């Protein structure tokens, strides 16, 4: 039984969220001593590329598979949910009080 693309999409979305949240938490709590801002931004870019590729594959798969449209839509929604979360996290980093951002 192979893992299907929708499950892969959901796992990628969940992992991106979990890792991103962990990075944000560590950055806010421990500061730049533990999490470098550049490292966090690199993570965001890599996560964006991977999620984008998987997102496209899920859409194509949903379009060309007969019984899979609903599941593909659900996966796409889940993956797209990471976009406002990422924006929120970005604002939290920018607006976090008493920090010296370059």
């Amino acid at each position, binding site marked *: 039984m192979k893992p299907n693309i929708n*499950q892969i999409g959901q796992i990628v979305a969940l992992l991106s969220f979990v890792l991103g949240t962990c990075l944000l938490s560590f950055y806010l709590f421990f500061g730049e001593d533990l999490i470098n801002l550049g490292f966090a931004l690199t993570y965001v870019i890599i996560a964006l590329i991977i999620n984008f590729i998987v997102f496209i594959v899920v859409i194509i798969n949903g379009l060309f598979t007969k019984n899979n449209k609903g599941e593909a839509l659900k996966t796409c929604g889940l993956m797209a949910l990471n976009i406002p979360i990422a924006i929120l996290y970005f604002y939290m980093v920018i607006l976090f009080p008493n920090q010296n951002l370059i």
Partner: protein
Amino acid sequence: MENSNTPQQNKQQTNKLSNWLKTSITARMLIVGFLIIILLIPLSYINSLIAERSFRQADVVSEINDKWGHNVLVYGPILKLPYKTYSETKTYNETTKTYFKETKTHMNYAYIFPERLNSDVNVDSKTLKRGNFESAVFTTTMDFSGHFIPTDLNDKGIKTEDIVWDKASVLIQTTNLKGIKSEMVLHLNSEAYNFQTNFNSKDDNHNRYLDVLESNFIKAEDLSDTENDNFSISMSFNGTQQIDLIPIGKTTTMSMTSNWPDPSFVGNYLPNDETKEITKEGFKADWKVLHINRAFSQQHLNKVPNLNAFAFGTKFMVMVDEYQKSERSAKYGFLVIGLTFLIFFLIQTMSKIDIHPFQYLMIGLALTMFYTLLVSISEHSNFLKAYLVAGISVVALITLYSKSILRNFKFSMFICASLTALYTFIYVIIQLENYALLVGSIGLFVILAIVMFVSRKIDWNNG
């Protein structure tokens, strides 16, 4: 990528994952760990709140100090003696074929420190409140007395006849012109001289931040070249934070009395330990600094040297370390949340009671609320009371919540006892200074031993 699984297989896969998340101990551990990491976000905001309140306090204290008067540093009295020096220039005259000699007279200044400098300082301190914050302020009366010995600058290559005796004056430098409360009068031998400020924007001496007070010209007959010149000056200041004196006398003594119960003696010299008295009603301290205790001479040419490094005195600070204590306790927030979740996790694993991640999140938020309660209450009360109120509230809240989610009185009482022990442990660590590391290490060792003992029978592989 074409999906080769049937919908039935897909459903089975989803159920398997969902089942793993619900029953596996590893999955539960990962979820609880993730929740602990998420709770670092509110904890970091609480840390930032504490820092912000602490900065606000520093701002308010600085504002009070600005209005009342800053710290007091006195550098003086210094005898300022003008003297003449000469320079010769030779110019060759082409027409007469001779050299033309021109002598220029320059006016320079010698700064003479007193032979003996006694100061009697009386400090009447109080605290000024503004909002929730307070600053220690004081009014001080400083009586200086002493003498200058007959001036002899021959060692410096200055002849006595080159000294312009009738243009001599006395200088006093201080940080706190704004705080001076009364007219300053110098009594030198039998005469009295007033002081005025002497602002000079071209002045390039090193004590730029010290304001200069200069007396009227001293009468030449008051500066005896055979006998000591006795002086006395009385000053009254409004000030804050600190009083310092630079020991410029060949022998400098300072006697300080105050109603301030928490003095901190600062600077290059400490008061005499045998005569020092600190009680709840105030303190009394005496200093004596000899010229061999400091590395500068009694006479300086052309500029007043920067001798701030040699200052000594007393700090009058309000011992407000509530924010510091709150900050230190918030640093243990990670530990408190982690250990509390560990207790709930062990109860969940051993008793098979299901605790939803949302319930963990609620417990975590209650634990973070402890710190906001602590900071806000400590602004209006002392730290112990604030800690007790915040601690009791949070422990009671979590105990009642755990009773409803665990449906077991024994477990909720165990949680109550554990949290009480944990908060007591953190409080003890915060209060201890020298033994904090020792007590902290022993406490963590005991906690680890208890966790190992309790979790020894859990079947981790079949969870």
